Structure formats: structure tokens, C-alpha cells
């Protein structure tokens, strides 16, 4: 991801120019990944042109519910986020880490070749950009660097888009992660659609972005264009379907491990792991060691895992988190509280996916509010002598 304090003034392009811009990226060997309608949802997939985008579609989301609906216009970006996030590209759901073969005494380990695919991420929302930055911190920001994540995130181009509307499960304003794209992009669009007018205000985030934009027709943005774009983002801000009071949230959750609300939510939670699969920041994985039939060739695979599965906490003798209550508590407390200690930020970007895709409509924002209402103040007593 490229960060740059660019002084470039904003530009305006039309749909044809946007299509051309996709072409420019492809001519520079980028593979484009962006939103696309598939299986009655808007997912991320490989795209070629603006025609592949979910033109004229929107999504209606609520806790445990997601429906596509036709819009009465031809908006390219008139929806929010779907079940996929970009993590599937940078941290693939299943990934071979290495292969090893044995020939008599000789053992040969073959690391995976460095990923050199140039990926252009198209129509990326602010919450998604924040999620990428959070995952990058996990995989590349510490003492150890995950080489596969590192190589995959190196050759990317990010064409962001400001949200012009918010979904019913969105709460990025609470998490300070949107809806306005502020950093981590090469180019950022705001779609202006007003009767016959269909244009895109383009902000330039990096030199690379400026170069790509220079290859297509644009005009300088007028103050009115800027004003219009601002109003569009403000409209999304005003539409947030959910909110979270994050005041003191780290201490609130860590001191409430004994709150009976966890029992209540565990009555509903199916421990299905959907929330962790759709979450753009969840990073847990497991490894699988496999061999071929000869037994002389083995591979190690890394696969997404979830703290909601029983085996996740297995140690010789048993599982540490046997109850659904403890697993839900682990997930939510990690996401909103202990993540701060580990990585310096919240692990939640307020995208609302975990709410939408929960089959029993558990709502993380509602759970935080419930814990806050029933706050069990007072932490664990320190050990005393002669107890």
C-alpha cells in the first residue's frame, strides 16, 4: 500500500475514462479485482471493465439478512460491502506454505515461489482499506514478517471509492474508519450521479495513482464538484445503520469477562464461525500437513481457522474453550479490546459484515451496548497473602 501526501488537485473523469483507466491498469500487467454480482451477492472477483461491476444494483442488509435489489439508476458503486473482503487476496483461505520431498537420505524443502502477481483492487471502501492496514500490522508489523503476506501486498494498486450511502449494519463512523477514504489509496473516486450527469471525482493518493490517471482524459475539479462529492460522503455518514459507543471499550470488555450477557449471547450463537470468515481483519489460521500416497512428498497448507471451533484451543488433555460463551467472548473481546494491546488499534472497522452474515442475527453493536448497560465494574482481586 502506498501512502503519500499528494498536493495534486482533484480531477473529474467520466465513465468512459474510468473504463480506460481499468485498461491502463491491465496494460501495466495488473489483474483487476473488484465487486461483481455472483450468487445473489456482491462479491470480489476478477473484473475486466466497468461493465463487470454491479451496475444498477444495491444491497439491503440487516442483522442476519442480505438481499440484492435493483436501483432505479445506473450507479456503478451504489451498494456497500458484501461477504468478501480483500483478505482473501492477501491472506488466501488456503495457501501452500512449502513442499518437501524425500529421496532416500536426501530431504528437499521447496518454499513457495514469491507471489509476483500485480493486483489492482477496484472500488475499495474506506473500512476495507483500514482492515488491510490492520492485517498488515498483524503479518508484517512485528518482530516476524509473514513472507507470503508481504509479497502479496507489495505489488498492489488501490482504486478506492467513497461510500455514497451506508448500509443498515454499517458503523464505520463509530470506529473512525470511514465512510470517507482518507489514506492508503492510489486513487479515490466519488461517484456523482445526478440525472444525466455521471462523473467521478478522483483524488490522487500517490505518484503511481497520478501516473495512471494521466493516461486517461480528465478535467480539473471545480469547487462545486468538490462540494458535491463532500455532500455525497456526508449523506453516507448520516445513514449509518448502527453505532457503537467505544468510550473506554478496552477496559469495559476486559473487566466484564464474568458478565452474564455472555451466557445470554451464547444461547443464540451457533458457533458457526461465519462472523470470523466474513470479518476483514480476522487472521487466525491452522496448518495441515499432507502427504501423497508414496509418503515421500509432503506439503504444508495454511487455512483460515476460527476461534469459534472447538479444536482451536486444543492442548494435550482437552480444549481450553469448550463453551460457546467463552468462544464468543474471546472473539468479541479480542476484536474490540485486546487487539489494542496487541497491535495498537481496534480490530474492528465497523463494516457490519459479522452482523449481516450471522445466521441468527447476533449484532456486535448490540452486544457492546448490553455489556455497557450491565457493566460489572471491578477487576480481578490481586492475590493476597494467607488467602
Amino acid at each position: 500500500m502506498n501512502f503519500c501526501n499528494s498536493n495534486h488537485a482533484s480531477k473529474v473523469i467520466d465513465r468512459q475514462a474510468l473504463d480506460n483507466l481499468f485498461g491502463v491498469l491491465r496494460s501495466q500487467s495488473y489483474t483487476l479485482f473488484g465487486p461483481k454480482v455472483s450468487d445473489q451477492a456482491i462479491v470480489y472477483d476478477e473484473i475486466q471493465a466497468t461493465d463487470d461491476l454491479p451496475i444498477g444494483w444495491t444491497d439491503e442488509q440487516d442483522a442476519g439478512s442480505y438481499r440484492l435489489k435493483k436501483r432505479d439508476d445506473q450507479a456503478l458503486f451504489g451498494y456497500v460491502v458484501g461477504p468478501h473482503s480483500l483478505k482473501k487476496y492477501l491472506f488466501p483461505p488456503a495457501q501452500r506454505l512449502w513442499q518437501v520431498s524425500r529421496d532416500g537420505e536426501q530431504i528437499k524443502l521447496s518454499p513457495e515461489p514469491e507471489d509476483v502477481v500485480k493486483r489492482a483492487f477496484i472500488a475499495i471502501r474506506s473500512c476495507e482499506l483500514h482492515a488491510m492496514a490492520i492485517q498488515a500490522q498483524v503479518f508484517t508489523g512485528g518482530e516476524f514478517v509473514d513472507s507470503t503476506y508481504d509479497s502479496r501486498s507489495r505489488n498492489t494498486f488501490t482504486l478506492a471509492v467513497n461510500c455514497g450511502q451506508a448500509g443498515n449494519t454499517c458503523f464505520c463512523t463509530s470506529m473512525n474508519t470511514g465512510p470517507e477514504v482518507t489514506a492508503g489509496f492510489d486513487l479515490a473516486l466519488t461517484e456523482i450521479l445526478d440525472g444525466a450527469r455521471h462523473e467521478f471525482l478522483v483524488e490522487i493518493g500517490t505518484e503511481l495513482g497520478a501516473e495512471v490517471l494521466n493516461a486517461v482524459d480528465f478535467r480539473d475539479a471545480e469547487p462545486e464538484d468538490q462540494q458535491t462529492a463532500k455532500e455525497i460522503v456526508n449523506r453516507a455518514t448520516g445513514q449509518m445503520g448502527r453505532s457503537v459507543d467505544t468510550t473506554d471499550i478496552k477496559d469495559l470488555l476486559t473487566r466484564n469477562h464474568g458478565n452474564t450477557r455472555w451466557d445470554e449471547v451464547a444461547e443464540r450463537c451457533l458457533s458457526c464461525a461465519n462472523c470470523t470468515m466474513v470479518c476483514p481483519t480476522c487472521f487466525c489460521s491452522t496448518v495441515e500437513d499432507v502427504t501423497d500416497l508414496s509418503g515421500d512428498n509432503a506439503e504444508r497448507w495454511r487455512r483460515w481457522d476460527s476461534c469459534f471451533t472447538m479444536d482451536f484451543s486444543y492442548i494435550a488433555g482437552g480444549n481450553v474453550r469448550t463453551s460457546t460463551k467463552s468462544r464468543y467472548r474471546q472473539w468479541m473481546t479480542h476484536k474490540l479490546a485486546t487487539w489494542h494491546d496487541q497491535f495498537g488499534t481496534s480490530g474492528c472497522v465497523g463494516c457490519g459484515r459479522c452482523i449481516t452474515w450471522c445466521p441468527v442475527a447476533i449484532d456486535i453493536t448490540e452486544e457492546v451496548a448490553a455489556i455497557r448497560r450491565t457493566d460489572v465494574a471491578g477487576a480481578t482481586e490481586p492475590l493476597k497473602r494467607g488467602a
Partner: protein
Amino acid sequence: MSTLEFTKEQMVLADPMLPTWFRVQCVRRETHDTFTLDLACQDGGGRFSFAPGQFNMLYVFGVGEVPISISGDPATKEIVVHTIRAVGAVTRAMRNLKRGDQVGVRGPFGSAWPVKEAVGRDIVIVTGGIGLAPLRPAFYHVLAHRNDYNRVVLLYGARTRDDILYRDELKLWRGELDLEVEVTVDSSVGRWRGNVGVVTKFIPRAEFDPGNTTALICGPEVMMRFTIQALVDRGVETRDIHVSMERNMKCAVGFCGHCQYGSKFICKDGPVFRFSEIEDIFGIREL
């Protein structure tokens, strides 16, 4: 002569997910379910450095990988020693390894026992079961630097007489005049004339100065809980108590998420923790 030597700095440069191949020098039976694996670097000339308390990820070809604490002498660089309990598919496969077989090693990982911080103080080591294995390197270090420490106490609890690890060494250490070594078993079967009862029973009367003691504990969590309480009852501060924790682990470098313990990652923040740093979460069930 290879100069392969793992230091923390070099680990960052090398890909921490890729194993290096070591050769089995010998597999020694310790008890009915526990054995010790001596590994040498593939070309026979490699050197392996670690700090007492650290662990390796050991991979058996095609079977899988498990975290195992290092239990050899930190002064020995040619051989890497692990004492392993055969409790799962991978560890059972390890028990069947033969001299010359190859094992994938990633590591060393994790935090260490505070043997430097403890200089000039009494050292009290309390262990149970296989918990003696991760503490043996610390004990070796203390023995090799005996003059750096005041009183040295080793308290060890095992299930039965037949489950006692490192029996010959324990006998040797018990014979030293400047060490207090106590061994006890939970259950007495056969001709055992030693101590019977839990390991915590020695704490009230062991010879150490609670105000100038560094305590190192490793064992099942319940055993550690009672041990900590007994040490605190004696007047040892929780900041002077160090424990080694265990959780599921897949990567050992903080990527897989499995070993999270509150805000800690056992793999990189632990496994050895100053107890005062985890005191608030230690008693929380299913954390």
C-alpha cells in the same frame, strides 16, 4: 564447519515458517510415555543457541508439527535436546524415530526464564510432571553459574515413582550440599520410600528468603495456581514469580492466533511470563 547458529536477529531474516533439518542422534526412554530426543544439525557441524525456557516447533515428515520446549543444556550448542510426552499423533511418531532420521526444526521461539535477573538472589524452582523439562535448561544454567546465586531450591512433583523424569540427574543433584532438591509423588505404588503428597507441601518450609527470591514454575495450571498461592503466602511478590504457560500453537510467531491468552500471545510474549503480568487473567476460566 557450518556456522549455522540461530539468534533472534537471524530468525527475523530467515523465513520463520520454514523448517531446518536436524538428525536424530538418539531417542532415550524416560518413562512409559515420555522420551528424550537428541538432535544434531544436519551436517553435523551446526550450532544451535537458545535461552532456557524457549521452545522449538518440531516437524515429523508428513505427520505434522508440534511445539516442544527445549530441555537440554544451554551451554551445549551441538545437540538440541527435547523431552517429549507421546500424547498425540506427532509425538507418538517422534517416539518411533531412529538414529539418523530427520526432523524439521523451527526456532527457538519465545521468552526465557529470567536467569540473569535472578543473579544474587535465591532461586526456587517448582515443577510438576513434564514441567521439569522446560526448567532443566534453567537449572543447568544455575548449576554452571552456582556462585551467581544464593540458595537454590528445586521442588518436583510427579504422578508416581515411575513417572519421575531425569531420575539419575535428580539423584546427583540431591547429593549436592549446596542444593535443596525435593521430589514427591502423588501416588505411591511399589517400593517408594520417598515423599508422597503434592509438591506445594515443601514450600512453607523450604529454605529461601521470600523477599530475595526468584521463583520459576512450570506444570499443569492447577498445580501452578496452588504453587503461586503457597509462594505468595510465604511472602514472595508476584513480580518475582515466573510461570511457563501452554496453549494451542500452529505458527509460533504470532500469525495463527491460536495461542492467544487475553492480550498475550503465548508464542511470542511467552511462554514464560512474569506472574504479575498475567495475574489479572490467570484465574479466568476458558480464557
